[in-house]
């Protein structure tokens, strides 16, 4: 009985090494492919500033050409020094800054930031412009 068991154990040891010679072929030079995705960069708005008013009471109109690539961007405008103050945007291309909005910042330069957002995404692009708020609170000047 022990001889039989020994033979059963030994037989695979004799046969199995022979199986290592049955390795299948593989392609010695497996083909590779490559491609590239590149994400877009939203175009930052180019801001222009112009003042208008009567006598010493002036406001500043800040304008830009809205981008429509890859889709029309949605624009917003803020004064960086007054983050809670959102300026209204007209026709997606104009915002007006009046001195009455900046009463706490009289006699200083402020930063107006215009931000375009690609709808449905978190992607934005922005540009800044400096404006001067007069001491008397009656005028806003372009740089």
């Amino acid at each position: 009985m022990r001889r039989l068991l020994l033979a059963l154990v030994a037989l695979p040891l004799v046969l199995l090494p022979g199986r290592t010679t049955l390795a299948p072929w593989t392609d010695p030079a497996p083909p590779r492919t490559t491609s590239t995705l590149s994400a877009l960069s939203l175009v930052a708005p180019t801001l222009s500033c112009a003042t208008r008013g009567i006598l010493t009471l002036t406001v500043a109109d800040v304008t830009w050409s809205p981008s429509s690539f890859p889709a029309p961007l949605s624009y917003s405008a803020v004064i960086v020094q007054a983050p809670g103050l959102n300026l209204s945007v007209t026709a997606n291309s104009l915002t007006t800054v009046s001195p009455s909005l900046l009463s706490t910042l009289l006699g200083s330069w402020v930063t107006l930031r215009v931000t375009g957002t690609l709808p449905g995404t978190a992607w934005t692009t922005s540009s800044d412009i400096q404006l001067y708020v007069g001491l008397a609170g009656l005028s806003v000047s372009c740089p």
Partner: protein
Amino acid sequence: MTGRHVAPRPARSGVWRPGVVALVGALGLVGGLGTQAYWNDQATVTGQTVTSGSLDLLVDGEQGNPSTYPWASLSMTDMAPGESKAGTVTLSNGGTTPFTVSATATASGNLDPHVTARVVLAGSATTDSTYPRQETCTGGTQTFNDTLGNSGKTVISSTSTMAAGATLVVCVSLTLATNAPNSMQGKSYTPVFTFTATQAAS
């Protein structure tokens, strides 16, 4: 009477001579046997050349190695969040040996964590040129749907056996996540797919 009596020598018998002749003749004949040769014949046969089989996997008819095959239909520029690009390649057995195909893929570039790759065997790629471009693979059998990473992931475990001359279309779509962060603008993504042919078990 004294003297020796000498018996007369008997005369040689004539019987001996034919015996000697027969013996010599026999020896002669036996000796002659050694010079006999069997008839034989020779013919030369030209041996047939033994040629081993070949195992050769092609991608769109190209070797793809050492020069990596540029998968143009899977490339896209100005990709925005939520957009997808799909493309196909045709694998073919350009050798004589049946094989199965497996594939691994890696990706490099900042966009990698935000791009999902989907691999479909025997699928077709749709086209879309209007924003948001959302191309996809239709039909076939999906074998992978995940990000790739740079460590190499198995995207095709094994195809069915491809006989010599057989072809198989592989469709891949790449999708940039809608919530990809703003910092991903202008970044890139380069996936590399490696297809390995293994001789099919007979």
